[in-house]
């Protein structure tokens, strides 16, 4: 081991201790509410096809980019409240907030919708800050983050009208949507408060259901802590034919535009007809730890990134 590496790892010790505390507290938070911790496979024969999430292959199977499909199969079997902290893998995602291998916290509730998941997130983060002795606020990169609930909610349509000057719901344009999110929206979010973006355009629905009575938008929400995206919630799509149609369309797009073969997750699709109404959310644990450690980069809260592995 080089001196540099020994010193780097020694410097991280404070953050790694806090990381362990955050993981412990997460388990306590969910266990006390009767959630069951589950552990689903990291390797699978098929995953949800998503064009912008490139999976790693493993002997013809795939490393899970999220535990979502397996967790929904458990919901089908009647598990009503489940959570998991899972190592997930997404190729070529590396930056201040990204590492190709990272940890997602996912939890699901039967009989709930995406608003319940946002409330859970508010309570989880407040519980965490309280247990770590931070109270209802903490300093992140020189700025005070005020956590008191409720966090602000704004629809994607209103947000884009205000900050980018166009309506992505009435005139969907996925490429422009992503570009403006990065250049015109995220940099200007209030760094002192969490915020929830609600109701994505139907074209960005992914595995979320369309809003009953307003099919132009999906019941999908993203939780931001200041300018850092923390969690993505859905009222889950439970309609098998609609989910299959979306997957088939995405699979064809992936083949056409990337020349990549994305097999359909058939067992998941077959189980969907018995999926109860439910909601789920995926939260980036490394980012939550970053925030609570006042760490500027994900590299400061994991001992080994893809650069030091």
């Amino acid at each position: 081991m080089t001196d540099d590496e020994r010193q780097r790892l020694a410097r991280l010790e404070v953050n790694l201790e806090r990381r362990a505390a955050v993981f412990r507290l997460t388990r306590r938070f969910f266990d006390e509410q009767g959630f069951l911790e589950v552990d689903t496979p990291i390797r699978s024969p098929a995953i949800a096809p998503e064009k912008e999430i490139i999976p790693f292959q493993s002997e013809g199977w795939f490393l899970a980019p999220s535990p979502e499909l397996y967790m929904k199969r458990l919901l089908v079997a009647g598990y009503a409240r489940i959570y998991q902290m899972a190592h997930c893998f997404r190729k070529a995602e590396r930056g201040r907030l990204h590492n190709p291998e990272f940890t997602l916290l996912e939890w699901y509730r039967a009989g709930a919708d995406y608003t319940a998941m946002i409330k859970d997130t508010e309570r989880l983060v407040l519980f965490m800050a309280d247990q770590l002795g931070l109270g209802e606020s903490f300093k992140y990169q020189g700025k005070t983050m005020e956590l008191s609930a409720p966090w602000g909610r704004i629809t994607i349509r209103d947000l884009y009208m205000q900050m980018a000057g166009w309506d992505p719901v009435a005139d969907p344009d996925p490429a422009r949507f992503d570009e403006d999110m990065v250049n015109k929206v995220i940099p200007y979010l209030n760094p002192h408060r969490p915020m929830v973006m609600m109701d994505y355009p139907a074209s960005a629905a992914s595995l979320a259901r369309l809003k009953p009575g307003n099919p132009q938008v999906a019941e999908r929400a993203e939780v931001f802590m200041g300018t850092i995206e923390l969690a993505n919630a859905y009222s889950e799509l439970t309609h098998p034919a609609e989910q299959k149609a979306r997957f088939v369309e995405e699979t064809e797009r992936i083949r056409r535009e990337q020349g990549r073969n994305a097999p359909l997750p058939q067992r998941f699709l077959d189980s969907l007809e018995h999926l109860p109404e439910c909601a789920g959310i995926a939260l980036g644990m490394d980012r939550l730890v970053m925030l609570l450690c006042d760490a500027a980069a994900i590299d400061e809260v994991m001992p080994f990134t893809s650069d030091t592995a």
Partner: protein
Amino acid sequence: MDIEDARKGTKILLDGVPYNIEDAEFMKPGKGRAIYRYRLRNLIDGSSLERTYHSGEKLQGANITTREGQFLYKEGGHFVFMHTDTFEQYLMDERILADKQNYLKEGMVIVTMFLGDKPLDITLPIFIEAAVMKSDVTTRTDTVTAQMKRATLETGLEIDVPVFIKEGDTIKVDTRTGGYVERVVTKK
């Protein structure tokens, strides 16, 4: 090269000009398209610029290497160098060397940057020593400010030197600024 394989320090070509990725910012909104924002340093003239790329885009990688070379002599519009390890010779056009040619002294060892096997640029030592070939004789002595005068060095460089420097003296020059540093006392 796929954009996904580029990182800080990767050398790329834009319109045939090599750039170093000096800083890379990776941004990806949830479920959205990845955006790469690079600060690029032009490896020829040192200027910098910002470029934004998206996932799926391709970059042209640049095979940049550096090797030690010795300056041998000038011939026509070319400067002739020799690799210090293989003794093979290579030529560089005086237009590519631009101002740097004014610091080259026969026998001097420099570092050359190659794109493939094509020499692109040289890195000079920070200080060189060169003899003064020609210098005016000044007569003004009636001021307290330091007196400077023009001088031409053996390399062809023209610089300002203090008045006490004479033709035949050897002086030390800073190649970053082109400024006089000091007179070198040579043992006889």
